[in-house]
């Protein structure tokens, strides 16, 4: 049985979701993972998309966050003021599932610009969308992105969404309700914030991945947990389902 690293990342992310959770899902890999989880261990996963679809159960992978499939399979569809003000803001959501372009050691994420000059960036990214408030208000956040030195940087070019700021106490002083990122899941491994320092720490490797590989793909001097576990290999069922999902979309979704 073989698989590629994106499949492993998606499956590992799916496994982090528990049944009955209320999950606020961003488009792309997070969405694939959430839909996969719902077809596996979490059939009652309560999926909310920022487009207003409540408790939706998409059978194929949406290309956009507002695809007809999300509305057609939803219990109800509400306005965006209701989604952001009544559902997200009060801290009702258990889990926020986010992607990112850049991330730092305190799990702060950037989806706005690459380059130091906001007025004249090297690369203009899409921007904030729903992420800052998702990162702020969900009880817990999982960030999913591919591991590379360009993505895992010492200092991100723009703080679009707050992780742990510059360490313990940052979220509290910013007045955020949620506990913040509980894990960063990549195509190589799983990082978790250190309970004391909040710094992202390597705690789990995907099968066949070495600590060196992860360190090579991380621009800061990555902390490594004393005991590292290895991710269970994807099951045939997981792989079959994730491939069927990706097939169901006309084109794999970019983050």
């Amino acid at each position: 049985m073989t698989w590629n690293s994106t499949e492993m990342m998606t499956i590992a992310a799916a496994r982090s979701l528990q049944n009955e959770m209320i999950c606020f899902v961003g488009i792309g890999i997070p969405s694939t993972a959430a839909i996969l989880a719902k077809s596996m261990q979490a059939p009652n996963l309560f999926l909310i998309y920022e487009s207003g679809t409540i408790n939706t159960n998409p059978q194929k992978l949406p290309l956009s966050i507002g695809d007809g499939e999300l509305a057609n399979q939803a219990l109800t569809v509400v306005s965006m003021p209701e989604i952001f003000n009544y559902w997200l803001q009060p801290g009702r959501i258990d889990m926020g599932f986010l992607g990112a372009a850049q991330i730092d050691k305190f799990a702060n994420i950037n989806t706005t610009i690459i380059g130091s000059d906001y007025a004249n960036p090297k690369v203009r990214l899409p921007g904030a969308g729903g992420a800052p408030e998702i990162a702020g208000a969900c009880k817990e956040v999982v960030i999913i992105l591919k591991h590379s030195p360009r993505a895992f940087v010492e200092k991100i070019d723009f703080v679009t969404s707050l992780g742990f700021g510059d360490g313990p106490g940052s979220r509290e002083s910013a007045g955020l309700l949620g506990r913040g990122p509980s894990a960063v899941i990549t195509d190589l491994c799983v990082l978790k914030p250190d309970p004391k320092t909040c710094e992202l720490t390597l705690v789990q490797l995907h099968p066949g991945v070495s600590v060196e590989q992860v360190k090579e793909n991380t621009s800061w001097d990555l902390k490594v947990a004393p005991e590292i576990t290895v991710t269970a290999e994807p099951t045939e069922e997981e792989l079959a389902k994730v491939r069927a999902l990706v097939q169901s979309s006309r084109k794999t979704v970019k983050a």
Partner: protein
Amino acid sequence: MSLAEAISLHVNDGDTIALEGFTHLIPFAAGQEIIRQKKRNLTAIRLTPDLIYDQMIGAGCVAKLIFSWGGNPGVGSLHRLRDALANHWPRAIEIEEHTHAGMTNRYVAGASGLPFAILRGYAGTDLLTKTQNIAQIDSPFGNERLLAVAALNPDVTIIHAQQADRKNNVMSWGILGSSKEAIFAAKKVIITVEEIVDEFEPRNSSVIIPEKLITALAVAPRGAWPSYASGYYERDNDQYIAWDEISKERDTFENWLNSEIFSGGGN
């Protein structure tokens, strides 16, 4: 009234406009009519500029963009937006960016006739120092600091909906995003619909917009294509993917502009 009349009568150079509809019911026909009529110096508001504003920006209609997520959903970048920002082609544009929660609440404030709305937003982000029309505000009840976002009140809001009845009331259903708020927030409202019906059928998650709120109504079948209209046609994902190629280079974009918009008759 025809869409061409509605745009020429109610959209003026320099106006602040909002073409809303979140992924669903994006008023492409109206946006392309704005391009066709060469409207200029517009301040264009949308949570997600999407292809519609990428087209208007590439065509030189837009002086300022107020938005919260500027990508090609599920595909990648908006190349015309990037080219305008990086190289000022075909003109320089100013941007003001927010979050979805912020933009939504700015419409809510505008719809409510209030100068601002409050939310728990932007906390700890660089948006606090980089963007405009936000301010921190203290609760008069207990010790809490929140974010105030300034109201949005477009000169014209343009919405595509599924149906109008014979009295010009409008019904839409499915994902409606911030459309209702954008309508109430606007000084003038233009609505395009798929068709006129004798009677609205009962539907869940539906909204009826009374004619009293509507300045001009035009029938524009498939007026949301390549986005979609629930109950009428699906999102044309191939077109969204194709746009990545069309918009990447200026010449391919200009060919598209000439063949699809300026040669095309319009609605």
